[in-house]
Structure formats: C-alpha cells, structure tokens
C-alpha cells in the first residue's frame, strides 16, 4: 500500500489530504498548526490519519514559513555586497512613496545600511567585464559583514544580468570564507535587468533561507525517524513542486506556496469537470485571493509587491489579494460612504462575533447577521459558538446608524459592497489579459468562498459556478496533484532582425535539458517531461514586455514577429505597425507531469436521498429579505441531486449559500454546479 500525502500548513490549520495510489481514494484531515515548529503539527496530522511513514510514497508540501518570515519581519540578518556606488539600491527603491497623497511614508529595508558594503568592479550593459572584483576586497567585505553579525551574504553587481561572471567569482571567493552555506549571487536567483528588483528578490531569498532551511531539516529528521526516506517536495509560487534540496537554495520560490496549491486544485477539479476557463476566489478567515485560469493554464505574474518597497520577481501564479476577506473591516468615511477594508481584523482579535476583543464589524459579522453561517457550528472554531448579538450590535451602531439603515439592511450593504469589490478585482484581473469574465466558470473555495457564489455570478454575468467537494481544504488537495516544475530565464535583449534564431533554439533546448536533468535528479516518478516556451517581447523603445508564446520547434524571425503581433493585439487591441521589435528574455517552464494513476477525480462525498441531506431550516437573508431556507448537509448530498435556491449547504470545512433564482446540480465528482435560472 502506498499513499501520497498533500500537506498545507497555514497560520491556524494544518490541512492534510491523502490519496491511495492504488484506488485513487482521497481522505482529508484538519489539525491545529504548531507555529513554533510546524513539523510537529504535520506529524500529529499524519498520526491522526493513522499513516505509517513507510506507507507514504511521497509528501508534497505547501508552506507559509517564508511568507511569514517576511510579513512578520523575522527573517535572517542579511548582508549585501554591491558594486561601488550602489549599496543603497534597496533603500532608494524606485523613489515611490506608499500613497500618492500624504507625505508621511516610512520604509525600513530588509538589510540595514551598516550591513551593505561595496567593492570596486564593473560590467557594462553588453556584458563586457571592465573591472574584475579583487578577491582581497571581497574577503574584506565578508570580514566586515561577519563582524556585524550577518548570517546570509548576497552579492549583487550592476549589469550582472548581462554577464554574471563577476558575481560568480565573488560567490566562489565568499564560499571559501563564509562559515555557512548561505551565500547568494543575485543573478542566479533572477538573471533579469533592473537592479532594484533583482537585488530585492535576491535579498528576499536570503532573508527567508535559514528559517526555511532549518524547518526543512527538522521536518526531514522527524520523517526519517519515522521511516520516510525520501525528500519532501515543496510547492512553489508557480504551482509546480521542487525538491527539498532546491527549496533550500531558492526558498524565495515558496512565497505563494499555499495559494498556488489552491489554484492547482482548482485546475484539476475544473479539468475533471470538463471546464478549463476558471476564475478562482479563495476566501479564508482573513484573506481573499483571486486567480484566473484560461485554457486550463493559470495566469502567471512576474512581479509582486510583498509590501511597500519590497518587490519580488520570480515566476509565480498571478494570485491577487483583495481586501474583502472575512476579516476585512467595514467602515464609514467622512463623506458618509460605506467602505470595506483594506484594514483587517485578522485572526486576532478577529471579527466582533469571535468575542476575542474585536470591536469593528467585519464581512464575517455581516454573514452571521444575515443567517448565512451557523453561529453554533462555525468553521475552525472547535465548538466555540459565535456571538451573533454582538455582531448585530456593532453593525447597527457603526454602519446602520450613519447610513440610516437597520442592522440587517446595513449587514446586507456590507456584503454587497464587499461582493462588488471582489467582482471589480476579478474583472480587472481578466480584462488586463484581454479576457472576458463572462467566458469563465467561477470556482469559489476556502471556508467562506462559496458564500459569495450568487452575487459574484450576477455581478460578473457569469453563467455557472463550480463549488468543489472540499472547498476548505483546497490547498492540501492541490499539493497532492501538483506536477514538478522548473522555470528558466535567459536574457536575449536583441532586436529581432539581429536575432540568431538558431542560438535562440539552442537556448530553448538548453533549458529543456537542464529541466530534465533537475527533474530526473529529484527522483519523482513522472510520466513525461514537457516544456513551454515564451519570449518577453516589445516594440523597441517600449519598456513593458508582452509575453509571447513560442512554438517548441525551430522557428524563424518572421514566425516570432507574427507571434508577437498576435499577442500584442490581443492585449492592446491593435499593433503599432512597422516598428522594430525587440526580444528581451526567453522563458522556459519545464514540467514533469506526474502519472495519471495519482489523479483520478477527487473522491466525492457519499450519496443518499436529497431529503436525507436536509438537516434544518432557518431564516436566511437574500436580496430583499429573510426567507425560510433549507439547510443541507453536504456529505449526505447524493450525486446527481438537483435543487434550487434559496438553500444553505453546510460541511465541516465550508458553507455554501445558494441565492433564490439559482439552480444546483451535484455532478459525478461531487461538485455543486450552480447555474443561473433553470438548468
């Protein structure tokens, strides 16, 4: 017997999903996280599922260790060695301020100024080395940094994207004298032009490296002790997995680990149900993340601002946070307008209804007042009921009074403004890529995502939503099915008419070979290895590149130009015409597709009579007023059952609200297929 285990560790919960390789059957489990050492929670989860380590074929892991290190500013003490004249690059940023209006911004860089030193060296923009760094100068810099208590050293030289030779040399010299393995050359993390973004990304890598490294060691020790001999695979921000070894070197790739796993799961569920255009909306207790999957492939992003002045530039799924999660605070501004977020009550103190000291009403409080969630069995509260009275009172006082609405109307207004904000963000995300949201299926997940189905369908004019079987354990399920993936980038930076197509094709083949070697070295069983190629291209003189898909075969300049024009027109509606075109980067994603056996459709909850699934009836507010509303138990909903709104569907990990006028069918995979009007 062999099992595959997906584990997603968040701040509050450790979610596990286990699949029997032979039968494809999936079981899930939620246990409390252990923030001090997350490996403890994982071990407890494995024990709770009665899994012996030797039965486990593979563990795939989504982690928030790196993310939290940055957000809580608990990362390592880093030192930077930079080209003479440039040690302040990360503090000068791109000269922005936090807000357009108001001049009271503050910024604290991740590397303090006394831990940033310079050495004379220079490479020009063509990659010609004008001055090599002296080994002695690098050793001196290292001594200075060690003296200041630095644990991780990052070398970042100007124009290293064009030629990393000087950085590499400095790294080699450092490795001889540095007392630990934490030595980073920036262009090896990100070989791209723009010194600030490249350095920032490399610094982030260093900042989170020791913490993730130590965590992975503890985890590996604990697993080995129990008889699991393999490497754990880590989910990357790009949705694919990498080996533990690679994660120790490039921990920055795990910053969006958990959310990316969630999108992965959505892609699989969609594929199983025959849907490849999806908008995902992951609503947890505090956060709300949206993403777009077009043609079965999640949209990708190249840059993310972790906070003011700290950009991250690695391949990642384009997952956007919207300040309209359950914990987002509703408030009235001076103009008497209702606003939601961006301030959040977070997990502590949490919404008013948690009774943990929160005094400002949140979206969750509004859901409660409207009867959409059950105060006696709240998700993830382990039997601690919610205080509906307090929620009602805070909404009445802080929202209702100024707007001259009663508590219920005010709660409804809070939900509607939140829904509009989510819908607006989804619209922006789709239209940015030239996509029409109406061509998509909505997939809400997370514990609270399915509460928003109806309004989002209406606002976005989307015809159909798919509520997956376990919305609240999505990321763990996504870990289970993730493919192995490695991304490569090669700086070309040539006018198209001067491009040597053969050299480009050689670079593509080189990437493919490198990816293949990496995947084979990781020893994960894959069915086949695929590569997808893109070029970052633009009209010469422009700055923002257009991601242009390239065919996986030798192609000439004309084909490349045509591919670019098609991509450009799709984005901006038209091309610029006869203007020289530049190809900036080649990007390759090499994917090791894991075998089909491991990806049977997620086991659906067991069936029965629809009537048997009816567990209660309670008044629930939908547009227009409270209506008597049946409450179904999700695990007892039979496959193939159909019913109409209004209805509430409850399960241990999520609640779904079906508005009047919506129709539901439980499909063969256990998804709730929600459509507007009759089926």
């Amino acid at each position, binding site marked *: 017997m062999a099992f595959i285990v997906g584990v997603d560790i968040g701040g509050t919960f450790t979610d596990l999903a286990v699949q029997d390789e032979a039968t494809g059957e999936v079981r899930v489990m939620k246990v409390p996280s252990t923030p001090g050492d997350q490996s403890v929670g994982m071990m407890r989860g494995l024990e709770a599922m009665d899994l012996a380590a030797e039965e486990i074929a593979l563990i795939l892991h989504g982690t928030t260790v790196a993310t939290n290190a940055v957000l809580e500013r608990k990362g390592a003490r880093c030192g930077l060695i930079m080209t003479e004249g440039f040690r302040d690059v990360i503090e000068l940023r791109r000269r922005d301020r936090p807000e357009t209006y108001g001049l009271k911004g503050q910024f604290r860089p991740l590397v303090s100024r006394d831990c940033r030193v310079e050495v004379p060296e220079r490479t020009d923009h063509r990659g010609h080395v004008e001055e090599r760094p002296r080994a002695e100068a690098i050793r001196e810099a290292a001594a200075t940094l060690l003296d200041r208590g630095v644990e991780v050293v990052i070398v970042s030289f100007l124009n290293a994207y064009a030629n990393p030779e000087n950085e590499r040399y400095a790294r080699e010299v450092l490795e001889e004298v540095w007392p630990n393995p934490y030595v980073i050359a920036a262009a090896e993390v990100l070989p791209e032009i723009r010194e600030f973004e490249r350095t920032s990304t490399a610094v982030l890598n260093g900042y989170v490296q020791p913490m993730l490294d130590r965590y992975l060691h503890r985890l590996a020790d604990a697993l080995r002790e129990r008889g699991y001999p393999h490497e754990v695979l880590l989910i990357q921000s790009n949705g694919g997995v990498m080996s533990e070894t690679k994660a120790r070197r490039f921990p920055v790739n795990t910053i969006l680990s958990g959310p990316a796993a969630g999108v992965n799961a959505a892609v699989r569920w969609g594929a199983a149900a025959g849907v490849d255009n999806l908008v995902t909306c992951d609503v947890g207790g505090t956060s709300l993340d949206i993403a777009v999957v077009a043609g079965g492939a999640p949209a990708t992003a190249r840059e993310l601002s972790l906070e003011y002045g700290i950009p991250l530039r690695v391949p990642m799924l384009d997952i956007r946070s919207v300040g309209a999660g359950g914990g987002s605070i509703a408030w009235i501004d001076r*103009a008497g307008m209702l606003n939601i977020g961006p301030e959040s009550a977070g997990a502590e103190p949490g919404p008013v209804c948690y009774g943990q000291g929160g005094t400002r009403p949140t979206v969750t409080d509004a859901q409660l007042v409207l009867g959409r969630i059950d105060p006696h069995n709240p998700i993830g509260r382990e039997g601690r009921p919610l205080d509906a009275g307090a929620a009602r009172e805070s909404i009445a006082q802080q929202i209702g009074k100024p707007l001259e609405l009663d508590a219920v109307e005010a709660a409804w207004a809070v939900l509607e403004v939140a829904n509009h904000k989510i819908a607006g963000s989804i619209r922006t995300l789709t239209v940015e890529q030239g996509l029409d949201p109406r061509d998509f299926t909505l997939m809400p997940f997370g514990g609270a995502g399915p509460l928003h189905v109806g309004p989002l369908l209406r606002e976005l004019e989307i015809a159909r939503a798919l509520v997956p079987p376990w919305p609240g354990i999505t990321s763990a399920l996504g870990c289970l099915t993730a493919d192995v993936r490695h991304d490569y980038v090669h700086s070309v930076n040539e006018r198209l008419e001067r491009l040597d197509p053969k050299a480009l094709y050689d670079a593509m083949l080189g990437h493919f070979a490198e990816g293949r070697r990496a995947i084979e070295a990781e020893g994960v069983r894959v069915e086949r290895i695929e590569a997808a190629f893109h070029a970052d291209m633009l009209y010469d003189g422009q700055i923002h590149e257009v991601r242009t898909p390239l065919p996986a075969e030798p192609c000439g300049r004309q084909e490349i130009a045509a591919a670019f024009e098609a991509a450009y027109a799709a984005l901006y509606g038209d091309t610029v015409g006869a203007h020289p075109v530049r190809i900036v980067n080649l990007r390759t994603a090499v994917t090791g597709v894991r075998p089909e056996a491991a990806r049977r459709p997620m086991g659906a909850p067991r069936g029965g009579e629809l009537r048997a699934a009816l567990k209660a009836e309670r008044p629930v507010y939908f547009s227009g007023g409270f209506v008597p509303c049946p409450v179904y138990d999700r695990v007892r909903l039979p496959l193939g059952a159909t019913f109409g709104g209004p209805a509430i569907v409850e399960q241990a990990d999520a609640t779904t609200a079906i508005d009047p006028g919506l129709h539901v069918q439980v499909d063969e995979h256990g998804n709730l297929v929600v459509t507007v009007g009759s089926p």
Partner: protein
Amino acid sequence: MTAQTSPLDPLTLAVVRGSLEQMTEEMDLTLKRAAFSPVISEGNDLANGLYHAETGEVIVQGKWGLAIFIGIMQFTTEAVIRVAARRGAEEGDVFLVNDPYSGGTHLMDVGMVKPFFHEGKLLLWMANRGHWPDMGGMVPGGFAANATEIYQEGLRIPPVKLFIRGELNEDVLTILMNNIRVAEERYGDFRAHLAAFSIGERRLRRLLERYGVDTVMACMAELKARSERQMRSYLAEVPDGTYEYEDFMDSDGVEPDPLRIHVALTIRGSGAHLDFSQSSPPCRGPMNSVIGTTKSASYLAFKHIFPDIPVNSGCFQPITFNVPETTFLNAVLPRPVSGCASEVSQRVADVVMGALGRAAPERASAGIFGTVSNVSLGGIDPERGPYVAYMFNGGGYGGFAEADGLNYGSPVISVARSQPAELYEQRYPVRIRRFALREDSGGAGERRGGLGAEIEVEFLGQSGVLSYIADRGRFPPKGLLGGEPGALCEIEVIDGEQRYVSPHLTKDANIPLRRGTRLRQKTPGGGGYGDPLNRAPAAVAEDVRGGYVSARSARERYGVVLDDDSGEVDEAATAELRRRLRRERG
C-alpha cells in the same frame, strides 16, 4: 441592489464610485504599459480621467496618475470646451493639446481629450496626458533654462482635432512629428493614449447599461457634493484666521534674482482663500507658472494634508484664489514656462502646505526636498541614433510628529518612479557611476529629515549637450518647530580637472559634453522636525552606525557623543554637551 433603486441609495453610490475609480485605474495602466516614452511607462508621468460635459470639472481621476494633474486636466478640458463651442465636438473626435496657456503645464505634457456620447448626446469628456520626451525647441528634452519666450521651448498646440469623427487628421500629425526630436517612437505613444480611451469607453458603457444614465449621473453629482462636504468638514476644524508663508526659487535661469512665492491663507468657517498677490512679478526666464498649474499645485497641497478625500471637483469648491497677472504665478503669453510644471509647482505646494501647517500643526511636516532636478541630455549616438535622455530625481521628506522623513521619495507633484540605472545604460550612452543616499543631508531634528541622493552620470558618447532646470540651490527645505533645514541641491559638471557650476547654480542649458564628462547631482534632504537636542541619543547612534548622519553632525548638531570604538552613546558626555549647546543656542 438593482437598477431601480434610488440614485442616492448608499449602496449604489458606493458601487458606482468603485466602478469609476476602477475604470480610470485601468486607463492609467493601459497608457502606461503601451507607451514608448519611458517617462510615461516607467515614470508614471501620466493621468486619465472623466470630466463634466459643460464645465469640464473633474468627475474622477485615475490613482496612478501624476498628482499635479489633479486639477490641470480639468483646466485643459475647459479649454477644449471653449474650442468645441466654436468648432463643434462630434462622436469620434479627439482633441490634441499641449499648450500651457490652454490649461496646461509645460509643452512636454501632451494631452488628448475625447467627447463621450451616450444616445447621441455629449455625456462627459475623457481626457488623458503623458510626458513626451521632446516637443522640439532649443534644447533636447525641452528644459531650456535660458529661454525667454515660449516659442523657444518647443511646438505649442492649442486644442486641435487629431481625429475628426473617427478619422485621423494626418495633417496635424505630420506637423507634430516633423517638429519634435525622436519622433518615430511617438507614433506608438499616441496609440497608447487612444488605447486608454477605448478601455475607458468600454467600461463606462457597461456601467451605463447596468445602472442607467440618470442614476450614474446622479451618483457623480452626489460624489462631488460629498467630497465638498468632506473638505469643508476638515476646514471647519481649522481655527479661523490668516496664515502666511513664503519661500523662494533660486532664480529664473536668466536673471540672477530669487523669485518669491508668498501666500496668505485665510480660513473662514469651512472655506479657504489663497492670496498669492505678494509674490514676485513675472520673470524673463522659464520659471513662470500658468494659472492652471498654480491652482492645481494648491489643490494638491490640500490633498497631501487631507489625503482621504476622493479626488473630484467637489474637494476644490471650498478653495478660492487671488493670483494676479502681476505675479509670476499667473503668467501670460509669451512668457516661457518649462520650469512651471515640475519646479514652481512644488514651491507653490510647499508654501500652501506650510501655511496649512501653521493652521493645523498636528498635520504638518517639515519641508520636503522640493526639486526634481530635471536633467536632459541629447545628441546623436553612432550606435543608437538620435536620443533624448530625460531624468529627474527625488530627495528627502520632512520629519513629522510621529517619525523621521522618508529617504529619497518622489516629489509632492507625482509618484513618478525612478528608472533603473541598468536601463539608462542600455538606452543611452552613459554610465551611472554612483546612485546613493546622500549622507548628512537630512535636516537635524527630533525627527530627522529624510536623506537626498547623490547621482553621478558619466557621458560615454562622442558629443552631446546637457541642460537642467533644478532648484533649492540657495533656499533649503525648511525645518519645523526648531528642526534644521535639509541640505541644498548641488549640481556640478566635471570635465577632467575642471569643475563647472552654473552661475544660476541649479539651471543651465546646452552645456557641451564629451566622452568622460561627468554630471554630479546632490539632491536636497528634508527639513528636521523639533529640536535636534531632543532626539533620542540611541536614534542618533543608530543613524551614525548606518552612515545616515556623520559622527561630527551627531556631536555638533545633535549634541550626542559616541564612543569612538563601540559607537555607543556616551551618556554623561552627551548630557553635558547638550546642556552646553542649549545654553549657547538660547
């Protein structure tokens, strides 16, 4: 929420406001991403918005846009409306305008204005603008410090139709493209402006379909009324009275005398009146300001002090002006104006914020750096062809009650981002030799002023010319409540052993360059807030450790004595020194 609900229903209002904001944000992003002008695409030197059909008043403006365009686009649209009254405006028309005297800034800010029709009726105007690298004139990049007439500064275009009923007016485009440098890339830029309109049109049509024209228009009127109410509620909290403030520009670039900007801010009830009549008369050089820029810079100052008020014409209603044509802040044709958008505007904002700071001290910051040091460098490169490199810089922010000023931020008038050194080196024949914080440049204070920057650029081409219009070479950003001023702006050109500093310190035009010539700029720091002798000694020690403040300044300005070896505070010696300095300083 349905289409039938009353327009004043708080929900519909919130939703319509959100949609309008989102739509203009998308227009900003489209213009930015599709533009060729690096000042637009990397620098965010752009704006998009919707404007009232009859009055041109701003309804909503995108959040990525340049802050100084907050009021300007409204004045531009007003100018277009005046022309349209004579020449008509039809569906598919697009007006082109860069004339500072038609509600503009400087000639490089190119605006497009398009009427939006709904069911055959003009419903509102869409407008956008972006900084084009060159509009012709006597120096590449347009910042001619020695210009004495606007005709020398470049091609001036009052509102003309670039498109007539959807058809490109090629004659206009031909005139334009034959009178500017590096014209080729501008074909892409004007398409980027149009792409932003088409995104905005699509979004607006959808909003109208969803809620109906009456509801949407009623919401716009209501949003204006609410912004006005919000601004008035803030002003009502400020004690009535007249608050004066003044500051100076170094010179106009032609004559040596400083230019005075004086404001008397009168708060009465919930209204504010700004009287600039005691300011200097119009000047010969390019430091004149057009009325639109003067007003817009003043609006902007109020927005910085009261940042949460949504931008629409409502928030400007409570503010009235007296800016006579006898001052350089309301120049008339043909005065040159290239320094107005980026330099004079900052000083106008500085004095208005200074006066507001006197009226509402709890909201005040010490002086901000106040010059973007516009530098343009042009020539013909054998490898790259003709080029115009335009650069501008940031500096330190003033300290304020809660914290130190930000190091190296963008100016009050914008959130324009700096361009990477690596991109400059790739695009232009230059090597950036140094880009660093300028140590000791923040004004000493209990809350220290933020630091400016040092930038050194080496010219690698065969021949070229350098022009710049900066300021704050003579009058530093002021300290507040006992804080010291920030460091002055310094610009020098180094050619071998020779160091050249302009007689105007911060302004010069067409300085010839040869290979190896270096430009060295030091941008100002922000002013300090509160007595430096009250700054926590540990914070001073921290500043010295990071090199933000020198050990000498720690001693002489902050009265903090540090141990030479450990860098720790010598408590006893510090207490003694501070006692002595307090006595000496009185």
